[in-house]
């Protein structure tokens, strides 16, 4: 089963916005580096949402069909708002399956120095990690690694290289 059914995504989107709002509040309370770095643009689209999960049916069989590569803006580690619904599904699956685990691989484009880009890739992976943890995923289920600019996307497009890849190590 492909998880690309429109209604389902829409519901998740609403669900995701609650967490976004919570993070923004945390940011305003003086925490300079909000862990998940969720941007203001996604907060602006926040609307009152249903509480409680309406998403069901993510299991170890179909979780691999979810989007697994998430792109970032230049020199940013803020998760793009359009990535949130899909990331929320990963988070839901992980939260419900404590034996499942992921490896988050952070990458950067080739602009800037290699060591800086290793740090930037890590920030991106950490942003996704914090998003997961904020949704009930256990810290021991997530591992992060940064490859910086060492494994660029072979399209040669910088925008495709600035990414986090979600890879399941157990599901």
């Amino acid at each position, binding site marked *: 089963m492909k998880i690309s059914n429109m209604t389902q995504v829409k519901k998740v989107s609403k669900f995701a916005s609650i967490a976004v709002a919570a993070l923004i509040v945390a940011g305003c309370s003086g925490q*300079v*580096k909000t862990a998940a770095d969720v941007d*203001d643009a996604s907060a602006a689209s926040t609307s009152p949402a249903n509480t409680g999960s309406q998403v069901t049916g993510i299991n170890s069989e179909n979780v691999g069909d979810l989007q697994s590569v998430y792109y970032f803006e230049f020199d940013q580690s803020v998760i793009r708002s359009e990535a949130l619904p899909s990331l929320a599904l990963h988070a839901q699956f992980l939260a419900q399956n404590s034996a499942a685990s992921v490896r988050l691989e952070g990458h950067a484009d080739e602009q800037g*120095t290699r*060591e*800086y880009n290793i740090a930037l890739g890590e920030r991106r992976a950490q942003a996704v990690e914090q998003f997961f943890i904020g949704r009930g995923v256990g810290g021991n289920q997530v591992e992060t690694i940064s490859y910086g600019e*060492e494994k660029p996307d072979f399209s040669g497009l910088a925008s495709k290289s600035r990414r986090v890849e979600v890879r399941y190590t157990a599901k």
Partner: protein
Amino acid sequence: MFKRFCITLAALFSLSVNAEVFVEVVEGIEEPTHIAVVPFGWDGENALAEDVSAIIANDLRQSGMFKLMAEQDMLSSPEQQDQIFFRDWRISGNDYMLVGSLKPSATGVSAHVELFDILSEQKIWAQDIDSEGASLRDVAHYIADQVFQKITGIRGAFSTQVVYVTAQGRGDSRKYRLQMADSDGARSQTILSSKEPIMSPTWSRDGKKLAYVSFETDKPVIYIHHWETGVRQSIQSFKGLNGAPAWDPTGNKLAIVLSKDGNPEIYVLNLKTGSLERTPRHYGIDTEPTWSPDGRSILFTSDRAGRAQIYSVDLATRVTKRLTFKGSYNSRGRLTQDGRFLTMVHQDSSGYHIAVQELKSGNLRILTSSKDDESPSISPNGVVVMYATKQGGKGVLAGGSLDGKNKFTMPSSLGEVREPAWSPFLN
């Protein structure tokens, strides 16, 4: 909201810095010395494996301090003093000339070379050198070192090595290699080959050890390669980043970057005692450490002021100060061995270039006009900086004199080339 506000402030700050950007060109660059390296005679039956005089000429040219006379412009090919008509060589505008001859010896090849000051017609150096089984390339680099020192007064650094990283292929066939070659790029050999990235090679000051980062175990681990024993040692790794190793002058400590406490910080690892000490903490990205020659401070890159700039921290007082102010982005500093000059990656509106700053005056000179330049590494005599750049979209190594006048590139057959690390003097 708060974060957005911070970013806006940082942007304003960097704008105001931008408005003051100006780059001073440090004057006083001398004209290159004109020299004729006359093709050496060879008194043997079979052709030699190496063109010794051509290697010497290439070494001298790449230093940027010499202008080499073209071989086809030479009217004669003297091999020793009594065959030289100094007037001819003077008229052709040369200051110095090197002549020599090679002949078979019991243990290989012996060379006789003579260096002349053309104006005074004085012999300033002559030597008989037997290869004793060593490669003729070693002999050629030795002669180039001697000629360089006799004329400039600066120790030659042609008999040194360069380590660098290559990446070739895509997907499952991708291969990363740690390579070592002569300083002119010849005799390249593979030290380590891996399907996972290799990064940040760096030599200890005595040239006996090389530290680097390898992802071969699916996480970044810092390794130390001991040249004399061939032993490869991994150092304790921590959760998160383990990278950017930098040797202190004694070779007993490594500055490294770890993110085990949440974000990248610079630590000093004492390899003898195993103790690990964190330098003053900051929530920004702190990375790319390098030691001052006296070992008292560490220079590093930080984005604490918005974008990357180079700072130094005094290890005793723990006082941190900013060193670079010209331009909105300066990173990955490396000092010359005398500690006077700092090379770095400098960004301006046309891209990332290699620049050099005289620390005392703060004068900055941009050495390169190509736009994807990174990883500067200075020759141990402080004459040439080697760096990585792009040529036709592909990573290559390039070099240039610190006066910015002379440039050269080093081709490689192993795909993308990056992160050159010039060895110290090895002899």
